[in-house]
């Protein structure tokens, strides 16, 4: 069973000629089949956690370990992490001009699966996945994220999630900027992947809204670079009613 183990993770970032510690000792274990929601106020370090796990060069790991099935993730390059089974659905997916969605998806699937998918089954696979996400087939001919609306970008991220079948999926504020219809479609996509039981999901969100569609097994409250409270789905209800104030007003020793 695939397991992502984060132990005492410390991360800094360079900003305004100063080094700032953003993550201050994160501990978290995500197992295949589990869904963990990480919730927290703006600036608490949620996205830093997501990007650090994926290996974004902007972040410097200063301490701790991250293991995926016992393998040291922090030693891997960004593409190696993806091939090892980590997937990051980004909050702000990047435009890649000149590269069509269909070319991108196939290149990516080839890299992740270790061999080029057979063309005929691949075309069908992509087409069906796109239909499930209510994406027009003309999407495949557009350049990656170029001119996509916010909802289209997020659906495109979830399309990749469905096609690449990672061991651990990190969804960074996938719900932000979505209207209710788009949120439902995107959530259904995530749920299809979860129902396979083959993915561990780390759902990072600012709002509880998405948790009505994607039921987490665990909820963690993130504040000042650490997990400050963990619980079951009921913790989200508490946050819904009380907000983050209890965690941001000195309730935590950072």
């Amino acid at each position, binding site marked *: 069973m695939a397991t992502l183990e984060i132990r005492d993770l410390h991360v800094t970032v360079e900003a305004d000629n100063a080094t700032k510690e953003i993550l201050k000792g994160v501990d978290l274990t995500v197992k295949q089949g589990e869904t963990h929601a990480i919730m927290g106020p703006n600036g608490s370090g949620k996205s830093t956690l997501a990007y650090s796990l*994926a*290996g*974004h*060069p902007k972040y410097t790991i200063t301490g701790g370990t991250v293991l995926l099935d016992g393998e040291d993730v922090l030693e891997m*390059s*960004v*593409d190696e*992490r*993806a*091939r090892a089974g980590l*997937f*990051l659905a*980004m909050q702000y*997916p*990047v*435009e*890649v*001009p*000149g*590269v*069509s969605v269909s*070319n*991108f998806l196939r*290149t*990516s699937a080839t*890299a*992740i699966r270790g061999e080029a998918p057979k063309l005929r089954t691949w075309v069908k696979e992509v087409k069906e996945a796109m239909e499930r996400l209510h994406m027009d087939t003309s999407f495949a001919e557009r*350049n*990656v994220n*170029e001119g996509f609306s916010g909802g289209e970008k997020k659906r495109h991220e979830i399309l*990749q999630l469905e096609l*690449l079948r990672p061991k651990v999926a990190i969804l960074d504020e996938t719900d932000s900027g979505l209207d209710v219809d788009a949120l439902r479609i995107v959530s259904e996509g995530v749920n299809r992947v979860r129902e396979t039981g083959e993915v561990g999901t780390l759902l990072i969100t600012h709002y509880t809204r998405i948790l009505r569609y994607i039921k987490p097994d665990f909820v963690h409250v993130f504040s000042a670079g650490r997990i400050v409270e963990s619980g079951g789905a009921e913790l989200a209800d508490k946050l819904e009613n009380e907000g983050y104030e209890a965690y941001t007003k000195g309730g935590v020793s950072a």
Partner: protein
Amino acid sequence: MAEAQNIPVGSTTAGQIAVAAESTVATRMSAPASFDVKDFPVPHGREEEWRFTPLERLRGLHDGTAVATGEGVKVAVEAPEGVTVELVDRDDPRLGKAGTPVDRVAAQAYSAFEKAGVVTVPKETVLTEPIRIAVHGEGGVSYGHQVIELGAFAEAVVVIDHTGDAVLAANVDYVLGDGAKLTVVSVQDWDDKAVHVAQHNALVGRDATFKSVVVTFGGDLVRLHPRVAYAGPGAEAELFGLYFTDAGQHQEHRLLVDHNVPHCKSNVVYKGALQGEGAHAVWIGDVLIEAKAEGTDTYEMNRNLVLTDGARVDSVPNLEIETGEIVGAGHASATGRFDDEQLFYLMARGIPADEARRLVVRGFFAELVQQIGVDDIEERLLARIETELEATV
């Protein structure tokens, strides 16, 4: 590429649309066009047409100090049956019909060449194989003149391939009879030290179709001046260009489409990738729609993809419209950067860094490569792009 977004440091993109009766693109030149080098003062570098060019790297082509050497370049022409290939003297009446030199180097070339090449495709002759002109630099200084003339309703593809090392200034004339169809592919695949300055003049006959594909990879300094004018209505010109500018290279393409007769079309698409310290690409796209050119339909576009720090792009489209009675006129210029975020995104999907870069550059050029229509050139180009990319990583 996002329109004019994402502009790297050290690059400029500028555009202007002028509706003017007096100040035309053609008259912005500091001296009027002339065949005689003496009509042009030696440029000092601040003139509009020279301000982007490093004069000190022209090896004397601009100031009269570059003296032709015996074995400057070797020219070999391979032509299918039915085509006439000649070397003619300076006084041949077929020379200089398509256009007049617009700067000192072009005039120097016209004043200094000894023999001109003339390739003629007789009227109504439709070639199935390309005419190939191999221009190979032997390390010397050379001035050249080449004429390619198609009779009425003739059809031909011409590949002009520049390789080796040379300091070369030349004029190339394309004369298209009524209803003729000419595709010219000019490949600048020079060695690193070569200097190549050329003016291409196309005179496109009534209902004729001219397609120019300019592919620039090599050289220390390449400065080309593809120009089009029309001899009758109903004609069409497509000007495609593709360049890959490496560290230290200066590659400059200055285009002019002169809509001087009514009901003609033009479409200009130039795309360039740049990498390395001191890589400098210049694109000037001038389109002039003269008052009499009603029914004109024109579009010009320049796209640049900057792959590394230290490269510079100057991209200046100019559209001057002297009549409102046109079908369409547009232009666009954008310079984008293959940045760390794009690289991260692709790598986060399992794609290794070098493959990610290839994916982006191939995608950037794909559409244009397909426009070439000459198989072996397309293949060579794709292979060359691969080689250029390997040099980056």
